[in-house]
């Protein structure tokens, strides 16, 4: 034990008083509580927009644009007016549309149609590369089906009718869209648009024909208007998962290390957009794909799409 000192208080010291101490304490606490409340109300940390892959068009415009794009007479996918033929069912579009070796232009999602093709790095361009096109991968996947993953696309939509939403859980990796087979009247009543709205039919058709990107764009457009729309939510999730798997199959193991394959001087002459530029800036030569996906904070599908595009353009390379 250390030194034990006893001191006598000086005469000026105020004596203790119970009541006064209490009142001081109570006042202090009340003031502090008030301040806290005000501070909590003032705090608004969210000053930035969220990064998203969803095109900025309003759903109506988007849907219209989608329809305008789909003028391809071969597919005729969006010409249908007959109700009750939505989704993969016995009356659905024939399989040859899915398996066609060269996908028609209508396969492209409207917002990315102009930028669908991927090119090797080239010198100065006025228009940037808008991240790798989704449909290009889907088409490429059809041309050279990879083991396991590609069977997702080559499913025969006429072979098995998908289970109805009430028929129980569908396996996560099943391709079939979990939408009603007959008509749209049985769809969730919360949809603000008419049940037989062409956008819904279009979404399901695109999904059924393996145009997951197109279906995703339409699903997100619908969700922009009705965030609770069950079919659109389901379709969005399935498309996102399927497309992610496709990109993953192309990229390979997520533990591969990513390196930039072009010199720093050449980078600025590439045709990239700022998202691809951002991802490129995160590549330090030691991080894996998995780490990069975490660090980017981008929606996973968008990050995978960009990475695939960069790999396709030979801007990056992967190694074990």
């Amino acid at each position, binding site marked *: 034990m*250390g030194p034990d000192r006893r001191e006598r208080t000086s005469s000026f010291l105020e004596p*203790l008083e*119970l009541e006064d101490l209490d009142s001081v304490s109570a006042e202090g606490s009340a003031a502090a509580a008030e301040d806290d409340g005000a501070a909590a109300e003032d705090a608004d940390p969210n000053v*930035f927009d969220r990064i998203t892959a969803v095109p900025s068009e309003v759903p109506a415009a988007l849907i219209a644009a989608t329809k305008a794009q789909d003028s391809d007479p071969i597919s005729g996918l969006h010409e249908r007016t007959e109700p009750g033929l939505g989704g993969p069912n016995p009356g659905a579009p024939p399989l040859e549309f899915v398996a066609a070796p060269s996908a028609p232009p209508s396969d492209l999602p409207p917002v990315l149609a102009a930028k669908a093709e991927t090119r090797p790095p080239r010198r100065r361009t006025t228009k940037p590369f808008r991240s790798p096109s989704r449909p290009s991968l889907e088409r490429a996947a059809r041309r050279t089906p990879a083991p396991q993953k590609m069977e997702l696309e080559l499913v025969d939509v006429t072979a098995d009718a998908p289970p109805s939403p009430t028929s129980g859980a569908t396996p996560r990796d099943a391709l079939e869209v979990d939408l009603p087979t007959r008509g749209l009247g049985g769809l969730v009543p919360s949809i603000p648009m008419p049940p037989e709205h062409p956008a819904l039919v279009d979404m399901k058709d695109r999904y059924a024909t393996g145009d997951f990107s197109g279906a995703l764009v339409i699903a997100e457009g619908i969700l922009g208007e009705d965030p609770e729309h069950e079919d659109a939510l389901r379709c969005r999730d399935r498309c996102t998962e399927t497309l992610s798997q496709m990109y993953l199959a192309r990229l390979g193991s997520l533990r591969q290390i990513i390196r930039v394959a072009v010199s720093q001087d050449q980078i600025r002459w590439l045709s990239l957009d*700022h998202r691809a530029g951002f991802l490129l800036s995160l590549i330090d030569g030691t991080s894996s794909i998995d780490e990069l996906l975490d*660090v980017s*904070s981008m929606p996973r599908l968008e990050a995978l799409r960009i990475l695939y595009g960069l790999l396709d353009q030979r801007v990056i390379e992967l190694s074990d």
Partner: protein
Amino acid sequence: MERVIGIDLGTTNSCVAILEGDAPVVITNRGGYKTTPSVVAVTEAGKRLVGHIAKRQSITNAENTVYAAKRLIGRKWNSPQVKNAIMTSSYSIVEGPHTDVRIRLRDKTYSVPEISSMVLQEMKVIAEDYLGETVKKAVITVPAYFNDNQRQATKDAGTIAGLDVIRIINEPTAAALAYGFGKDFDRTVAVYDLGGGTFDISVLEIGAHGVFKVISTTGDTFLGGEDFDARIIDWLVNGFQKEHGIDLRQDRMALQRLRDAAEKAKCELSGMRETEINLPFIISTGRNEALHLQRVLDRPTLESLTGDLIERTVDICKQALADARLGIDEIEDVVLVGGMTRMPAVQQAVSGFFRREPNKSVHPDEVVAIGAGIQGAALVREKQDMILLDVTPHALGIMTFGSHFEELIPQNTTVPTARTKTFTTSRDDQTAVKILVLQGESAKADENELLGEFILTGLRKAKKGHVEIEVTFEINSDGIVSVQAKDTETGQAQSIQVTASSGLTQDEIKNMVTNAQDYMVERRTDERFEGVKQEAETLMAEIERLFPEIERAVGSADFGRDALSKAKGAVERTRAAIQSKSTSAVEQQVEQLARTLRMFKGVVTRG
């Protein structure tokens, strides 16, 4: 002898060191860095990120990334520091069940010690990976101004991380320990610590035989390297806006890149006269044109941008000397701590103020962790060749009439200790007094930290000033404070034992320990699975590459077809095992695949 690691748990970066033989070693993390950002994040997928990886996404995932948790640890919800943090932090700070502070990430709420424990756990893993053995004991450093609650919260964080925190020591003391390691001298030193987020200046006396005493400590908890980065970012953003009319602050991805580039440029300018900041495709315009940012920053520009920040540290140094009642000439050496002290302008300012060249014998990023490592080794060593005395970090006393603070145990008093003072009643016939036990240096009671309170009743009725109450403060060697109030005439007494609290109950800590252990088990399992999966994938790729050659080599022979079929089956089973995430199943398949590959290679070689 059991290993003890020393951890510098910093506001922005943490560092871990250990004494190997007689040499202190700073342990590098997996990325090869000696410091790890004290940043924790949760991704959209619910994955926990700690360190560099968390820092690299701190702007693009700002709401779910916690930085500078140290500013909040052990603080009460209604403290001014917490209010300030609520206003300035990008993550959500909410009130805890015990008027403590909690942080919301995604859909879960975490206590601050829990967040700090994630950083400590990372440091523990780094040390274990290096040593190849489990580490249990640790010494953790805290700022000298931390009160008992903050120290206890730091200790709790260590416990949650699975560490037995055998000592909490002051950062300047640790720095002085590393500085004086192996030397035997009496010296008064100033420790100038300009880190990533905070600035501290402490004056210490280093006595012969390793006695270290903090004489004064002061600082600014919102002044550090990040402020220097912010000035560079402003310079870049303003220049870009002038040129293109676009505010880069509005785009998170651009801002993240700017921050990384600013920090890099700042570091480079400590060794170079100028550096180029090159950020291609920083933003896309409305016309879909990608714009690049390219500027050259030179040292004079950086110094003009940050001169006032450096000046602020000098003003605080003046205050520290005034608090220590020492003149500049009495400071015999200046120890530099923190990465920012590498900046030439900072070194010039320090040498200008203290009128001597600062000591550069210790690494500014590592010195605190090294000191903690040295202390850790000393604590478990049988031969005690160094005494590091525990002192009270703040004065202890009670509140008296008029909301005044009456000090009983002064700051920096060596523990164990006991002090007694006598007080009187303030009113006639007063029969009770309330004793509020406080900690701090302010003369106003409400500006100090309330540690506990109790009421002494049954006082004899008498005129005011006639009843004498003896108040005794006692701190034992474990830092537990006991306060007793006694009516000297009647002997009526009442006491309280004050144990510092982090704001967490023992049950909560227990749960958090279990959760942290579960997380570690899961993490190690995932790492093992990923390792074996990668091995399997490499083997499968190699086998599949050889399939055509094998088919050609074996032709139509039955045994060949059978071997091929078996190989394909093994590949399929491996894929299924990977899909089911079964480590043991994949391990089994790896053996089979390895055999298959050996056989294939043999066939190809013979063919």
